[in-house]
Each structure stands twice: as C-alpha cells, then as structure tokens.
C-alpha cells in the first residue's frame, strides 16, 4: 500500500503498467494459460511473417517431386502436385486466422448488439429475438453453414459470413443473460442517476461487464470457426484452390492416409489442432485479463 501511495501521482502511466502487470500476472499464475498465449504468439508470428520466411513458394508445383515423404529439404514432405507442405502449412496460418477472427468478430458484434438490446429492453424485443435465435439454433448448425455457403458461393467472405451467422446465437444468448441480470443492478441505477442515457448505460456500464464470460466463448468459437471451415472444406465447400488452408489440406490429405502418404494430412492436421487447442486454452486467461476483479 505504501508503494501505491508513492506512485499515485503518476496516475496515467501507472494504469498502463497496471494492465501490463496484470497480463503478466495472469500468465504467470497458470502455466497452461502461459503455454496457450505462447503458442498464440507463435501463430500470430507465423501469420505475419510466415509468407516471407517459408523456404518455397506454397503454390509452385513440380510433378517431379510429388508425394515425397518429409526430408531435410521438405520438412513436411510434398503433396501430390509437388508443393512443399511445410510452406503451405505456414502460409495457411494467415488465412485461417483471418477466417476465424473475422467470423468471430462479426458474430461478437452482431450478437452483442442483439443480445444487449433484448436483455436491456426485455418484453417483446426479447421474445422476438429469442424466437429468432431458437430458429437458428434449431438448424443443425453445420448444415446451416453448408447451406449458406452453397447458396452464396464458396468464397472466403461467404465462409466467414456463414460461420458468423451460426455463431451469433451463442453470443446473443450470453449477452442477453449477462445484461439482464445487471439491468436492475445498483451500478446501473447509479449510472442513470449520473445522467447517462439508456444507450450509454447499456454500452458503457452494463455491456463491458459481460466481457469476461464472452471471452471464454470467443476463445471456444475461434477454434470452432477453424474446424467449421475445415468441415466445409471436407465436403468441398471450402476456400478455393490453390489457396493453402489447413482444412482443405487435411481434407484432401485424408484421402492419402490409407495409401501411406500420411504427411499430407498429418501436418496440416497438427497445425489445425494446435491452433484450435491454443484458442480453447486461451479462454480462461483472456477472461482473467479482461476482468478487473482479477486484479490485485
């Protein structure tokens, strides 16, 4: 307490270092979380730098070296067109992260807005929204995504929209519940007394408190979005060839497993798993980071 007194005058920098310190603290506290964030940093790194670091052009074919097992020259082997699997796996990171992050961002935003309104206004708004969400949920979600992509065409953007749409109910529900329990909370009333309009109360006071549980959902969904894209690829509705994408690579490589060319599916599969795994494990850490109550 004495050292906080000493630094109290430097309010602004202290707040920053407080956030940073808090992140460090969260990471140090749980080794699994730290591991997850480490892996996440690695994935981000390969998404940003990967394309300029990989040893081969991920699109260059060479039938002379098709289907070679992993070797020093080709760490993850080569595929049926003689493309370097390692380069493709690394380059694919960017697209896969973009798909999952974009899809989750859209559903986060849309779900938050809908859920907040329904949770805050209650009444008919709530009833109607709930029925709409039920309707989406009543579809087997993967099939709905398939239908949307089949109807709109299989571009990256459409895959993102489809994934986003099927995720919206989860966010909307969650936000609705979180907003609803805080609708009558003391600090909500206090915020109104402080002259905040309803919209402001909702946006600045109630909604941010729904963030911690949402972070867990975000992390689960990030992984799920990648799996979803991979599933779409498996039934042929994924991104367009020759764009490297993990799901497509696994899906196509899967046909080669029985014939002994295991590396085609295994390495992208491992990376895919690594990414989903990372996202899923990050959830608790993310929640702790956005939750000020975890600060000490």
């Amino acid at each position, binding site marked *: 307490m004495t050292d906080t007194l000493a630094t109290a005058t430097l309010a602004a920098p202290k707040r920053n270092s407080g956030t940073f310190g808090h992140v460090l603290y969260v990471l140090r506290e749980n*080794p*699994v979380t730290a591991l997850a964030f480490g892996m996440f940093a690695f994935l981000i790194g390969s998404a940003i730098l990967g394309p300029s670091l990989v040893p081969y052009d991920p699109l260059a074919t060479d039938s002379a070296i098709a289907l070679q097992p992993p070797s020093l020259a080709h760490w993850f082997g080569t595929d049926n067109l003689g493309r370097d699997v390692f380069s493709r796996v690394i380059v694919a990171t960017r697209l896969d992260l973009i798909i999952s992050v974009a899809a989750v961002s859209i559903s986060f935003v849309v779900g938050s807005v809908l859920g907040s309104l329904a949770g805050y206004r209650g009444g008919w708004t709530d009833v109607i929204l709930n*029925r*709409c969400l*039920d*309707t989406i*949920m*009543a*579809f*087997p*979600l*993967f*099939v709905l995504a*398939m*239908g*949307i992509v*089949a*109807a*709109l*065409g299989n571009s990256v953007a459409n895959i993102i929209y489809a994934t986003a749409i099927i995720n919206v109910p989860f966010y909307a529900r969650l936000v609705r519940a979180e907003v609803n329990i805080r609708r009558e909370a003391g600090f909500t009333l206090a915020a109104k007394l402080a002259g905040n309009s309803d919209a402001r109360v909702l946006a600045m006071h109630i909604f941010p408190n729904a963030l911690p549980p949402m972070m867990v959902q975000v992390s689960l969904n990030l*992984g799920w979005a990648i*799996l979803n894209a*991979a*599933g779409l690829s*498996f*039934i*042929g509705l994924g991104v367009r060839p020759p764009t490297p994408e993990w*799901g497509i690579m*696994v*899906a196509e490589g*899967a046909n080669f*497993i*029985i014939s002994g060319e*295991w590396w085609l*599916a295994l390495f992208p*599969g491992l990376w*895919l*798993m*690594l990414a*989903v*795994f990372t996202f*899923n*494990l990050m959830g608790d850490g993310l929640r702790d980071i956005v939750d000020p109550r975890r600060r000490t």
Partner: protein
Amino acid sequence: MNGRGTAILMRIAQAVPVILGVVIISFVLTRALPGDPAVQFAGLTATPESIEQTRVKLGLDRPLPEQFFLYVGQLLQGDLGQSVSTGRPVAAELAARLPASLELTLVALIVSCSIAIPLGVLAATRPGSWIDQLCRLFVTAGVSLPTFFTGIVLIYVFYYLLGIAPSPLGRLDFVYLDPPHVTGFFLIDAALDGDWETWTGAARQLVLPATTLALFTMAPIARMTRAAMLSALSADYIRTARAAGLGAGKVLYGYAFRNALLPVVTTLGMVFSFALGANVLVEKVFAWPGIGSYAVEALVVSDYAAVQGFVLAMALLFVLLNLMIDLAYSAIDPRFGTAAK
C-alpha cells in the same frame, strides 16, 4: 394446472414460431441454392425440352409464393414431399435414416458422458491440481481435432494397420442381416430379437464412429461439469451438510452433484444438437447411412424436398430435445416453472 405443466406447455407453444421460421428459412435457402434441379434431374443427355418437362413435373415452373403455399399445404397434411434424387417419400427416407444417426449420436454421447462427467467431477474436487490441468488438456485436445480427421486416423490405425476394428462399412457388416425393424436402433432391435451375434456386430461397427464423435463432444461436458461442480461445492448448503456431519460421498453426489447436474443437462442438450451436426462429417467417413450424409447429398444436388424435410426433421428433433431437457430439468429442479426460476 400447476406451474410445471404450464411451463412445459409454454415451451411447446414457443416452438410453434420456431418451426414456422425453420420452414420459411429452409424454403428460402433451398430456392437460393444455385443450380437448377430440373437440369440436375433431367438426366445425362438432357435437351431443353426434357429439362422443361422435368421442371413442370417437379412443380418448379410455378411462381415461388405458390410453391411455398403448396409446400406448406402438403406439410400440414403430413407430407414432406418426394425426394427427387432417391425417388422415395422424404418422410420414409428420414424414418429409415434417423434411427441410424440417433443411435450413433446417442451411443457417442453416452460414451462421452461416462468419461467427461467423472473427469469433470474429479477436476472440480482438485481445482488447480495437475489432474485438473491434465483433464483440461485432454478434453481440449479431443475437441481440437476435426472429426473427419480423427475418423480417418482411427480407421487407418485400428482397421487398416492393426485389423482390430471391423471394416468401416456402415451399421452392420454384410455377413449379418439387419435385425427385424422395431425401433430402427440396431442395438435395441437385435437385443429384442435375442440375436446377440448381430448385436455384437452392430456394436462393433459403432465403436470407431462413436469414439470419433465422443472425443469431439467431451470438452463442453467436462468443462460444464467442472464449473457447475465447483460452484455447487462452494455453495452454503454444502457447508451446512458438512457441518451436519454428512459423509463425503453423500455431500459430493447427493448434494453437490445433483445441483451441478442442472447446467450439465442444459449443456447436454446443446451438445446433442451439435453432435447431430457433426454427424454429417462422421457419417461420410464411416459410410454411415444416417440423415447427415443424406442431407449433404441432397444439398449438393439441390433436392429441395429432401433438404427441407431434413431441416424440418432436425428442427422438430431440436424442439423435442428441448422439451426432454425441460422435463429432465423439472424432474431435478423443483423450482422449475415457478417464480423462483
């Protein structure tokens, strides 16, 4: 009428707009599919005339609103239409395939629950310990694998390399005959028939696909069990029970677990409908004659009636499932349907 009954009736009433919404969306979605079913079904060497004939035959020459009202009219009479690609009534098709999907999904969920729930309880009783972390890593790893990938790897290892598993040829190897149809669930039908050889055959076929699905569904169940157990264990009534000298088993299972079951049941419902969706991929890998693979085929060839029928069936199943969850809930939680809940 008591609160519980009213609450359940309310839930059923709420399902009506949902079903209506599903009917509309599935209709619009199928019509939005690119590709002309008349072309698809006119056959190989179609001429413009034969395509036009096919179109008239399928009723696709009429304006969309008329098609919709015809469809709804048929639905109200319980007619889901004909699947053009299989030429059979969609209802018959679904009736034949739904049990296959349900059997697989249910077995997978039973396997998954019988592993995930104890794991969750174990983790909750030792939060932060290495067991807790190990459980977390294990179930997360399961959910991180694309199901089709897991499926193929399992086939490769257990069928192709080791030769332990039976050939991945659907519900029953061809040396067996299907058990007489009672429920459509082979395990049940074979047991009713007393034909344990077929039963074993069917069970063996189930092992790999069910494992694939189970691996995928364990994470949410284990996670929820752990969280619910943790919050139940820290509740005041647990302290009361302990202070009254109740045994550890009674406290853990009689008090904490039954309370923790409530959110777990809700999660189970979600996982179930989720697993039915994931089935689409698993069925494809294991040549499982279920409704998921049927839907994929139908979607790809723009078989409107089949897609609509499938979606509707799933929606009804979803509604039914929620109803069952509500029933389970009301059986566990006396507060259900009262002001307290």
